[in-house]
């Protein structure tokens, strides 16, 4: 493949200068107009601190937030993927009952603000379901190793119920969008594929599993990956129910230190560190599929 050489044009320089000027003006306004004392040197200690007792560097408030965001995102993506696939299959089912269930699910989730859904699930549904599962007593009865394992994978025992409520909320909410993506994927597969596999004697489930879904997933991978990135971003919403993820930790820290700008900027950078690599992966996937088709 031959790379095209790009010539810098006059308009490029103009745009570049304009961008630089805008940024400089913003910085100038913040410094002069906002009466803000920058104290960047105070930020690193909230990421990592030196623990004098153990003589090691350990994570601090903001990094804990980042880890929680990561946990929420990873489990959220898995669960939302499962919900989305099941509901997506239901949505393209021939049976009216399944279509109605999945249709009601998608429409109610997509047409409500996520904040409202989170409050409803956390305060009403979460309370009725979670204690019934007996999660707290189950965890307490486990050995310390198991408890540590659970703390590592999910959350500390005392925050576990809240964590699962948040996780379920996000999975249910994002699952609705993934449902639609999966449905589009399934419906985009041509009738001929169904008919051919039917002619080969495959059952409905075998057709779905071996013929339709693999092709559908190939097509929907880019939008799916995009949805996962938005799940990472949306995880900041659960800060309203006091899950100690990145946004929550950031606002808590601001309350006690008043390093408003520094903390927001640091939090921004941390979110970018999570989402940008995902974005790059999505681009790669798109290029890969474009090539394999062409």
């Amino acid at each position, binding site marked *: 493949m031959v790379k095209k050489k790009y010539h810098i044009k006059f308009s490029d320089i103009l745009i570049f200068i304009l961008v630089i000027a805008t940024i400089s003006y913003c910085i100038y306004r913040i410094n002069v107009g906002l009466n803000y004392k920058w104290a960047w040197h105070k930020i690193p200690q909230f990421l990592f601190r030196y623990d004098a007792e153990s003589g090691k560097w350990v994570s*601090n408030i903001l990094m804990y937030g980042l880890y929680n965001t990561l946990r929420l995102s990873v489990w959220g993506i898995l669960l939302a993927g499962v919900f989305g696939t099941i509901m997506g299959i239901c949505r393209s089912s021939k049976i009216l009952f399944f279509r109605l269930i999945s249709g009601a699910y998608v429409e109610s989730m997509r047409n409500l603000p996520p904040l409202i859904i989170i409050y409803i699930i956390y305060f009403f549904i979460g*309370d009725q379901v979670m204690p019934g599962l007996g999660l707290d007593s189950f965890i307490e009865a486990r050995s310390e190793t198991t408890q540590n394992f659970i703390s590592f994978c999910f959350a500390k025992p005392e*925050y576990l119920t809240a964590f699962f409520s948040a996780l379920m909320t996000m999975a249910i909410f994002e699952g609705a969008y993934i449902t639609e993506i999966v449905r589009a994927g399934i419906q985009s597969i041509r009738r001929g594929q169904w008919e051919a596999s039917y002619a080969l004697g495959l059952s409905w489930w075998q057709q779905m599993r071996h013929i339709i879904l693999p092709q559908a997933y190939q097509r929907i991978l880019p939008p799916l990956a995009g949805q996962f990135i938005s799940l990472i971003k949306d995880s900041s919403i659960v800060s309203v129910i006091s899950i100690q993820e990145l946004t929550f930790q950031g606002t808590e820290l*601001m*309350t006690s230190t008043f390093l408003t700008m520094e903390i927001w900027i640091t939090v921004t950078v941390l979110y970018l560190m999570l989402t940008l690599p995902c974005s790059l992966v999505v681009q790669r996937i798109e290029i890969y599929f474009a090539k394999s088709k062409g």
Partner: protein
Amino acid sequence: MNIIVLIMIFCFAGAVFAVDVQKELRKASTIEKVIRNGKLRVGISTFVPWAMQSKTGEWIGFEIDMAKKLAQDMGVKVEFIPTKWEGLIPSLLTGKFDLIIAGMMGTPQRALKINFTAPYDFSEMNMVVNKKVAAGFKTVADFNKAGVTVLARNGTTAVPATKRVLPKAKLLLFSENGPMVQELLNGKAHAIVSSSPEPAQLAIKFSDTLFFLDESLGKEPISMGVRKGDPDTLAYLNNWIVVVKNQGFIQEKVNYWWKSMKWRSLIE
């Protein structure tokens, strides 16, 4: 004869039933549950210096010390559940934690939803003022006019206090302290109304921009909040408050967290 036996059975059943109810009530009380589980879950909300995270991620503050002492006296572990201020009462009602220790005043409206203990402390409602924007403002009454912007944290008692004392001023609500203070520092508002000692301490921290208006907008009793229908817990806490007050524990903590700024180095 038969009738007498029947009546007697009813009477006994009634008595047994009453004993059962008493037992059930005691078993269902929060205090029993806390002792049984060996841990006290306390709902807190970050508010300097009532409850906040230290540099090392530990919870520190006036309310934290209160909760730790309470747990220690009960012989149980303490767990802090940080919650947004607006979420405190709903979370208590839905059992996310056992009690609220968050510098909360038992306003009549709140007391319709949950029960409050006797006050363990009082806090003043004060103002911290932007020097430039509110130049020439000397008293609280000076702020009660159109064109004046006052900030307060959403859901706190600063909101009704401001509406009562400064009905003519424009009131802007924030749910976070950080952005609210920044708004005042930026000169977009005249003052922040908040519970002591925050206004005075803000004025010390940002002494070149802000000043403390040494006039109270009202005094607030601070209580712990518990779920309704639980007289045992309420009685236990009320008794505990009287005891620690007389031990001088509360005064000692007030002196440390409110009158001194020694703790500042713990958080930054």
